């Protein structure tokens, strides 16, 4: 509860701070301080200190998993604010409002990590999404930003409609909005129709809408355009924290309800996983802009994260946390560097290693992590995903794992194009000014990634603490 209330309050504080000051640095610092408070509040909540004791009538349930994810999301946002905060306040004329919207979105994230009824799921998604529509369009003079915002908004509303229809059908079948399945103790599943028709149909629609939110193919179409069109700082936020929150919501619901779909659930899921991996990885190969490549790569990463649904065991819940952390840190880092680049194409990175060796090295670590190379956090993230799938399904899922690793190899292709540009090609990579604080931040993040990569329990021990 701390996180939800604090983030809403801090959003209001940010709104007011715009009245009090026009100085963007101060606004940024207020935001960072706010995030710090938020993080502390959430950590306190994790270790049973409730600042706000409100009976939500079982609409929200705060478990360790959700709270821990919250911490990851808030900490990631904190890192994001530290690294890219100065860029956030440069976008548009409303620096404080941008941060306010980020706080509101975080409120949605917190709801999504703790919802216990479909109503809260719906509200959480909306609270998270609406600020994003706005942030996407916040570069008002930029037609790309306009376009992205419009597309995001229209498709987002459409998927909300699908979600609501799903919820309604589910309600029609069960008479309540609880996420727990009333059938969860029933006998062995033999046909898909065991649970009637309305409930599975509703679940399918919810499933599709969630797929849309986490940009799983073929519901991913908004992702490249929106990520590309949105101001880069906000793409960074959307592609990491928001996306991870979408996954948490997805998993929270479907780790319980997936079985209600009957035996076809795994074929539906694997179809979607393969489609996502295919679209994400293959399309990323031909991109010329690093930003757009990252958009497609985020689709590809979503394909891996979907494995958590397949596994649905302790490994998958640990894994999705690890994945969120690894993916968020790496992507925030890459975007932070991207924002500093004058030219977003691959060629724009040519020769960066000569001009900014430290930045290039950190960027390499982030890219290696995204590619899932051992000794980086990304490796264990992918490892957990595949392991969780293998653990519960064994033999039948092996082919899916093989397909996944082959696509992981494809992903190396486009991630390493950036490395090649930085290290092996001659060129004058132009950047805006890079402060030493920024570099220090990058180094810290790179070290974090390597630490998790050497020993993931570094992160996961917190989970069990």
């Amino acid at each position, binding site marked *: 509860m701390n996180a939800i209330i604090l983030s809403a309050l801090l959003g209001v504080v940010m709104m007011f701070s715009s009245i009090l000051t026009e100085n963007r640095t101060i606004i940024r610092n207020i935001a960072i301080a706010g995030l710090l408070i938020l993080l502390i509040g959430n950590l306190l909540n994790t270790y049973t200190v409730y600042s706000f004791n409100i009976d939500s009538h079982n609409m929200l349930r705060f478990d360790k998993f959700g709270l821990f994810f919250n911490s990851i999301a808030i900490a990631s946002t904190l890192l994001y604010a530290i690294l890219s905060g100065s860029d956030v306040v440069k976008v548009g004329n409303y620096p404080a409002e941008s941060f306010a919207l980020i706080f509101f979105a975080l409120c949605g994230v917190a709801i999504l990590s703790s919802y216990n009824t479909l109503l809260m799921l719906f509200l959480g998604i909306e609270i998270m999404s609406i600020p994003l529509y706005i942030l996407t369009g916040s570069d008002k003079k930029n037609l790309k930003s306009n376009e992205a915002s419009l597309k995001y908004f229209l498709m987002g509303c459409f998927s909300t409609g699908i979600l609501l229809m799903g919820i309604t059908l589910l309600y029609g079948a069960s008479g309540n909005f609880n996420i727990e399945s009333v059938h969860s103790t029933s006998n062995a599943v033999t046909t898909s129709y065991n649970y009637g028709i309305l409930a599975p149909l509703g679940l399918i629609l919810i499933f599709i809408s969630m797929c849309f939110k986490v940009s799983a193919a073929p519901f991913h179409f908004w992702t490249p355009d929106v990520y590309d069109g949105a101001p880069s700082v906000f793409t960074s936020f959307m592609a990491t924290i928001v996306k991870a929150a979408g996954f948490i919501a997805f998993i929270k619901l479907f780790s319980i309800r997936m079985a209600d779909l009957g035996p076809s659930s795994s074929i*539906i899921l694997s179809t979607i996983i393969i489609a996502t991996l295919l679209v994400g990885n293959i399309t990323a190969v031909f991109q010329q802009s690093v930003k757009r490549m990252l958009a497609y790569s985020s689709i590809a990463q979503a394909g891996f994260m979907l494995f958590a649904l397949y596994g649905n065991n302790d490994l998958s819940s640990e894994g999705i946390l690890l994945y969120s952390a690894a993916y968020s840190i790496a992507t925030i880092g890459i975007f932070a560097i991207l924002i500093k680049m004058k030219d977003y194409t691959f060629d724009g990175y040519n020769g960066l290693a000569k001009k900014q060796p430290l930045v290039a090295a950190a960027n390499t670590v982030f890219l290696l992590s995204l590619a899932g190379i051992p000794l980086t956090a990304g490796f264990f993230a992918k490892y957990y995903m595949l392991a969780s799938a293998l653990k519960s399904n064994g033999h039948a899922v092996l082919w899916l794992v093989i397909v996944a690793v082959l696509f992981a190899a494809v992903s190396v292709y486009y991630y390493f194009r950036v490395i090649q540009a930085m290290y092996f090609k001659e060129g004058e990579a132009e950047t805006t000014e890079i402060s030493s604080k920024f570099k220090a931040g990058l180094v810290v993040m790179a070290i974090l990634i390597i630490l998790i990569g050497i020993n993931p329990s570094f992160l996961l021990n917190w989970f069990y603490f």
Partner: protein
Amino acid sequence: MNKIVYLVPLFPLIGFLINGLGRKSLSKSLIGIIGSATVLASFIVSLVLFFDVKAHGASIVDYFNFINVDSLKVSFAFQIDALSSLFLLIITGVGFLIHVYSTAYMIDEEPQHYGRYFAYLNLFIFSMLLLVMGANYVIMFIGWEGVGLCSYLLIGFWFKNDNFNYAAKKAFVMNRIGDLGFLLALFWLIQKLGTANYADVFAHASSLSSFDVTAITILLFVGAMGKSAQIPLYTWLPDAMAGPTPVSALIHAATMVTAGIYMIARSNVLYSMSEVTMNLVAIIGLATALFSATIALKQNDIKKVLAYSTVSQLGYMFLGLGVGAYTGAVFHVMTHAFFKALLFLAAGSVIHAMHHEQDIRKMGGLKKHLPITHITFLLGCIAISGIPPFSGFFSKDEILAAAFAKNPIYWGLGVAGAAMTAFYMFRLYATTFLGTFRGTHDQEHHLHESPAAMTIPLIILALLSVIGGFVGVPEILGGHHELRSFLSPVITTEVEHHIEHSTEYLLMGISVAVAAIAIIFAINKFSKKPELAEATGFGKVLSNKWYVDELYDTVFVRTTLAKGKFLKNIIEKNIIDGAVNGVGKLVNYSSRQLRLIQSGLVSGYILFMVLAIIVVVLIWVNDGYIYKFFSTLF
């Protein structure tokens, strides 16, 4: 006596190391002395061993485990018995003479190349000694490849000349083809008997099936074909004449090329068990003898004639082996070593005198300029022609008699070959030494007899060529054939042929008479009017060696190269690498196509979503049949 066995190969090895490492610092004379002395030392030790064997019989000296894996134990061991001690004497004895000869022959070389030459020569002696001393097939194989290497190095000694290099490479590669056969035979033995030691192999040979024996012996024979230049692997030997002449004498006449005979004689136990192989060996040997003799008829290079003669004589030896006359073959190895080394060295003396001119059409009348060379060469020619009582007569006769006993046709063809041998040898002799000098004035002016270092070995070898045959005088001529009794512990499966004495006399008479007629004919024909024009008609086919080289070039060399080119340019580049790159291109292509779906139109996106919803619902409606289908796939 066992304690000194290791000295035999050790001396040449030391010589190799000293000459090899010190070739830049040592003086030429020192190099020559070291090179020759080490071989002489080996010879002396060999003599001691020889008499020891004669007195006390064979012995095996085991030094260390060379390879010891599981049940396979190959030890580095030497076996000194009658056969090997005889070969030791031939190798070190003839080898020593040739070393001495070389000190003079190669004197014009730069010091470091001079040193290199002697190092190679010593290394060769070392390898050859390993070959014959080894107590198992593996050690024999080590020597076997070692002599091949030295042959390669020495043929290509003058490495500035690319033709010589090609000849060297050809020799090595052809030998390797044979070596593969040897190796396979070796594996076969090891698989069946679990050992490669002669003693064990022969002791357990009877446990081998007849198929195994045939396979093993044929494969071994393939090895012998390569090393001893038998059809079809003979073409390297004439080309090997690119090396310095003493090398031709030592390696390509007296010692290395007889390794095949040594091997088969050594394995006589196995060979005698397979009639098929014996016949094959005889037929190949005979064919080689005749075939190369025909080629020798029309060659104009003094060394080429001798080379083909060597091939032909080796064919005789295999004929002898094939008909079971192992002793005869070994006997012929010995006598051949004497007279062929002599002939080569004498030829070398001629070439030396002629300033490296080798074409006999530009010689003639050398009799008066090179008296010692002339006499010794003549003696060699008589010996090879098989005129009694020269050494060649006894050895060749023994083979022919055995061939007759086996099959009179073998004998008939053998005699025809002998006639050709006599003919081309005396064609060579007459063209070179008789008549008038046909070279340039400059050459004539410089004609001179070779120095003593060259003539003394000639004389010694001539002596041996003359008397060498008396160790194997057959009983019908009143001898005891001491060689046979000496070798009998090793060659246990000698075929005893029983021919009427009268028949045998008749056979001898015929072969001698045929040879004599050929000699007289040749001298008459060529001493006055040597054949100077290019051959025409069938003669051209012969002088072009039946076009075998061309045939091989087309059939094997070019196709191999073409295959390589094909594989490199077509298969590798387009198919295999093409497939690998094709996957990359496919990904790239599908990337370009797939991104077109991302049309930028919201309604298009939503249409895809709606279709996907329909598909997902349909999959669900399908009640998991698709799932079941996939799960049965694995």
